[in-house]
């Protein structure tokens, strides 16, 4: 146990230490300043603008920015959809894989464009190298960059006074991809390749089993590059079906550490960026603190539950619940990954969530159900969290006798509408999606288990999709026309409703004057506020999901 504690503490310390310089670096990128990579990348950036005939200095109004985001994503969606339907006829298909069914193609396109990376398929037996590289990997980059760009818009909304425009989407998208995502991915890929993650275009390898000499096919491919961005961009879609529980995707404890760290590093750094950009580091710190507290609390519950609350495994494994876990990782590293991948809307796995203890699984589910705001998706996690901050400010602000304001901006009806849309979308879509599935006549047959655990499987699946997480509980047969279509629609809605709400919220904030702060102003950076924000997040989450959790993991826990 003490090793697990040391490992977790080391992880959190490294995360905290790296997030500060990275956050400050991202701030410079957002602001369009020169950074140390500019020498190399500035010419590339210029070339991209020239080729795409983009005016980088263009200032967009919120409506135009929103339209650009939607148009760009729609184009990406269409391209990915067609690529899957046609992959059987296209090159880079050494295994001769067939084209994908239309509903799976729809679901996968929706999933990758929405930064969810829910996978109703196993990569090695479904997607060709071309689809993986040109379709999925590209979306891994740009869907992540889109999330960060939208966050930039919101940050600008707070920082600007009486402004009509919120920046250029094309410039934001290009700069984030070029200066942040690609360099970090290269560093991470190199580290992963050094650990033995494969990166090749050669066909699958045939081998003989050590045990009985049976013939095995070892799937290969350009994996390392996709895995790097899958972790960094809170995507989570594995190159291989078993995701990071597969040795060629995650071979060593060090690769596991790098991959876990990459899950959280950008969302954590963006808190620092936020504080810097609004010229009040304490604001970023308090949001960061709330995320860390929720993360650490979840980590503790998951670890304790996996380590001690699995009595029926007591006689099998000496170290808690090892069902569905990679021996190399053990309970500690699997719990840390589990907390990280559901805190961030990543969804990559290095163990099977379905086999976690009921409480461990419930905490993972609850982390998602909070709306993916504990670190959350790159960009999207922080703008979701800021919506909660504004909600908290609204209630607390009234209690100090002023009409509420956050960072000097008065919160008025329009802002409140957008904030409520941001907060409302994930729980509603989760519940409605899961209810729709429960109403389907054949729903029972999609499940691995019966009783409360069976219900958990359905709830987890829609929680994952409706929060753009993408992790699978396993046990839930996801590749049916019904789940593919409902899931696809849910993923798109829960991605783009908040994105539009955020952009228009930012536009409205940017237009406002800034109110001066004084003694009578509610502080949004002290311990009281952090506590209050925690309370609001937990109460809204609990009020939305307590009944369904009672029917799933809570009943499951009490039954065993």
């Amino acid at each position, binding site marked *: 146990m003490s090793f697990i504690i040391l490992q977790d503490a080391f992880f959190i310390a490294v995360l905290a230490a790296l997030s500060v310089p990275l956050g400050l670096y991202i701030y410079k990128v957002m602001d369009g300043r020169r950074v140390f990579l500019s020498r190399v990348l500035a010419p590339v950036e210029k070339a991209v603008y020239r080729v795409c005939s983009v005016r980088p200095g263009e200032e967009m109004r919120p409506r135009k920015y929103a339209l650009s985001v939607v148009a760009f994503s729609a184009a990406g969606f269409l391209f990915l959809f067609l690529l899957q339907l046609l992959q059987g006829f296209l090159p880079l298909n050494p295994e001769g894989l067939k084209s994908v069914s239309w509903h799976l193609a729809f679901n996968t396109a929706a999933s990758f464009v929405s930064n969810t990376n829910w996978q109703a398929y196993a990569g090695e037996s479904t997607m060709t190298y071309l689809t993986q590289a040109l379709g999925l990997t590209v979306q891994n980059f740009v869907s992540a960059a889109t999330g960060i760009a939208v966050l930039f818009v919101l940050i600008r909304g707070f920082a600007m006074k009486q402004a009509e425009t919120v920046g250029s989407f094309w410039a934001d998208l290009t700069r984030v991809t070029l200066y942040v995502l690609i360099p970090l991915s290269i560093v991470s890929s190199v580290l992963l390749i050094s650990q033995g993650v494969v990166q090749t275009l050669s066909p699958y390898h045939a081998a003989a089993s050590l045990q009985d000499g049976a013939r095995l096919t070892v799937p290969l491919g350009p994996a390392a590059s996709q895995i790097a961005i899958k972790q960094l961009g809170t995507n989570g879609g594995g190159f291989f079906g078993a995701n990071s529980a597969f040795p060629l995707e995650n071979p060593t404890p060090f690769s596991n550490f790098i991959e876990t760290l990459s899950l959280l590093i950008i969302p954590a750094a963006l808190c620092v960026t936020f504080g810097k950009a609004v010229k009040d580091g304490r604001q970023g710190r308090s949001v960061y603190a709330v995320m860390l507290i929720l993360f650490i609390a979840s980590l503790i519950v998951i670890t304790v539950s996996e380590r001690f609350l699995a009595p029926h495994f007591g006689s099998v494994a000496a170290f808690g619940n090892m069902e569905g876990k990679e021996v190399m990782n053990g309970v500690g590293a699997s719990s840390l990954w589990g907390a990280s991948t559901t805190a961030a809307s990543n969804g990559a796995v290095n163990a099977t969530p379905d086999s976690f203890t009921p409480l461990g699984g419930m905490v993972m589910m609850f982390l998602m159900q909070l709306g993916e705001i504990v670190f959350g998706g790159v960009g999207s996690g922080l703008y979701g969290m800021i919506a909660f901050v504004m909600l908290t400010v609204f209630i607390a602000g*009234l209690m100090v*006798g002023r009409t509420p304001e956050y960072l000097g901006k008065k919160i008025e009806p329009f802002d409140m509408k957008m904030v*409520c849309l941001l907060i409302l979308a994930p729980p509603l879509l989760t519940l409605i999606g899961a209810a729709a599935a429960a109403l389907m006549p054949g729903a029972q047959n999609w499940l691995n288990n019966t*009783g409360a655990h069976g*219900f958990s499987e359905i709830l987890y699946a829609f929680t994952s999709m409706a929060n753009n997480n993408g992790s699978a509980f396993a046990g839930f047969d996801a590749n049916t026309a019904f789940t593919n279509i409902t899931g696809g629609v849910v993923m798109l809605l829960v991605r783009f409703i908040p994105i539009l709400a955020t952009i228009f919220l930012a536009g409205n904030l940017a237009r406002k004057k800034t109110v001066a702060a004084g*003694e009578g*102003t509610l502080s949004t950076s002290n311990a009281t506020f952090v506590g209050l924000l925690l309370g609001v997040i937990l109460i*809204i989450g609990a009020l939305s999901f307590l009944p369904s959790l*009672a029917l799933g993991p809570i*009943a499951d826990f009490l039954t065993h």
Partner: protein
Amino acid sequence: MKKAKTSQKNTQINDALKQSFAKLSPKAQVKNPVMLVVYIGAILTTAMYICSLAGIKDESPAYTLVIALILWFTALFANFAEAIAESRGRAQANSLRGARKDVKAKKLKSAADAGNYTEVLSSALKKDDLVYVAAGEQIPMDGEVVEGAASVDESAITGESAPVIRESGGDRSAVTGGTVLVSDWLIIRITAEAGESFLDKMIAMVEGASRKKTPNEIALQILLVTLTIIFLVVTATLLPFTAFSSRLAGSGAAISVTNIVALLVCLAPTTIGALLSSIGIAGMSRLNRANVLAMSGRAIEAAGDVDVLLLDKTGTITLGNRQASEFIPVTGVSEEDLADAAQLSSIADETAEGRSIAVLAKQRFGIRGRDMENLNARFIEFTAKTRMSGIDYTSVHDGEQRVNEIRKGAADAVKNYVLQKGGLYPDECDAAVRRVAGLGGTPLVVEKNDRVLGVIYLKDIVKNGVKERFEDLRKMGIRTVMITGDNPMTAAAIAAEAGVDDFLAEATPEGKLTLIRDYQAKGHLVAMTGDGTNDAPALAQADVAVAMNSGTQAAKEAGNMVDLDSSPTKLIDIVRIGKQLLMTRGALTTFSVTNDVAKYFAIIPVLFFGIFPQLAALNFMRLGSAKSAILSAIIYNALIIVALIPLALRGVKYRELPAGKMLSRNLTVYGLGGLVSPFIAIKAIDLILTLCGVK
């Protein structure tokens, strides 16, 4: 008197009870989305009760009926809360209507000929008509005095029985329809037509007829609707969830629609939803009782946000009158001589300052009144041009009659006067003048027969307790700025003594306007009080502008509130009322939301008991049964509305504290209280129900 009050209260309650039923009409219910859910739930469960009699049922008819009844009561309680808040205003409006009766007005052809008039009804008067009003008559409509001066009884509007002076020209020329002339006569130019008069506006405001939802209220409403939508989906999806789970578990059944409706109603933020509009109305009526009339609800909320107060020095910070506190003679003059001359020149001076000089002279040297006849005295009145007053008199010296003159006044005026007449103005006197000004006083220089005698120190008396008051305001983050016509040195001294944060000396209307704009540019919200026409631009610019009722029409139109008492300290009360209104909203919202936690713990374990009996482990409240738990929760939900009506009307307790402390305090009371109290109350209700045999 007491009896009259009780009976008035009784009629108000009766009135409110009647209104609570009237407000059950769909048209009234649609306005409040949260309570609309309760309303629809009540209709639905009633319909289900009727169906259950016909045999189509998911719960026993008696249980469905009880649920339906509790829901109807919940809706009625919410209506009652709003009606009782409105009833106070309605009572006030009725008494105002008494003052608005139609009277015969004497309409003049021209102001020059007051005798030549035709009698018309006041409601037929048009703008710019001229009317003649004599003593004992009612002023027919709002207007401006063109000619004459009279005392007017404005008690119908202000409640203040002492008559006030209204006269043509200057800042006291506005008259209000419905008030009564006590003496003399006036010729008035009408400025408003029937239906738009001040009294009409006032009636509409207190009655809440023109009440629009304020932006903050709308924003809060959006939040409440959001919560309601979440709970709607949470409870509605329980139907498929429990149906599915019971199939998976092989035991139990889907929960009933009756229970889903009950669960939805007790989770929806009905407490704040029911009280939201009464909080707003009560805030307005608290302001009315402070004799302030807000032109919109928005203005009250803005008052809560104000962080800069512009306060007039005179009357707010200092007592209206300066008082003589010291005689400072120049070398060669005794203090008594100076006092004697000062007293002599002030005998006829009826101003408070003049009198205070006589009083000081009497206290210090026993100088009393004298025989004016023998002195052949001629008093020189103070004018704005000479800025001096004084006396010319004769006295007998060595058997010879001599004409003396004494002048007292502003230092520079007296200096010029003396120098012009060939006298000397000693440096010593300059020094004394500077010293007095430096102390925040007003120096008056006295000269007799071209010889400077010395300086009278008129002291500005800072009001008792203002320093502490400003200290409190500072704690709340509100800056106070003193506005005065004094010179900067005097102003600085008084500002320091009173403890204001800043001051504007030698204030002009333009100066005030610039000051307000500067503060606003820095992101502050500014409140001010004004009365004169020249205040109008500044009033129009300020975020909260309180015009005095005694002021001009222009000032009243530029402001967004009217202070019927014309009291300069009113601004501070207005800020308090604004803050209290917002705090009450926040506190009850917090209370309403935290209540849900207990309701969940009460209901969920017993609700799913049939499907997963193990969930009974969570029933640590040990409630009797699913039925008694649900009934207890919705009974609590209905009763808490009634229990909190007094709080909604009165507003939460307010203290001048910094934001952080205020938040912790309210969080403890309403957050923690909201978390804990329903546990106790629901358990108690459950015990009673179980005793009554509910199973």
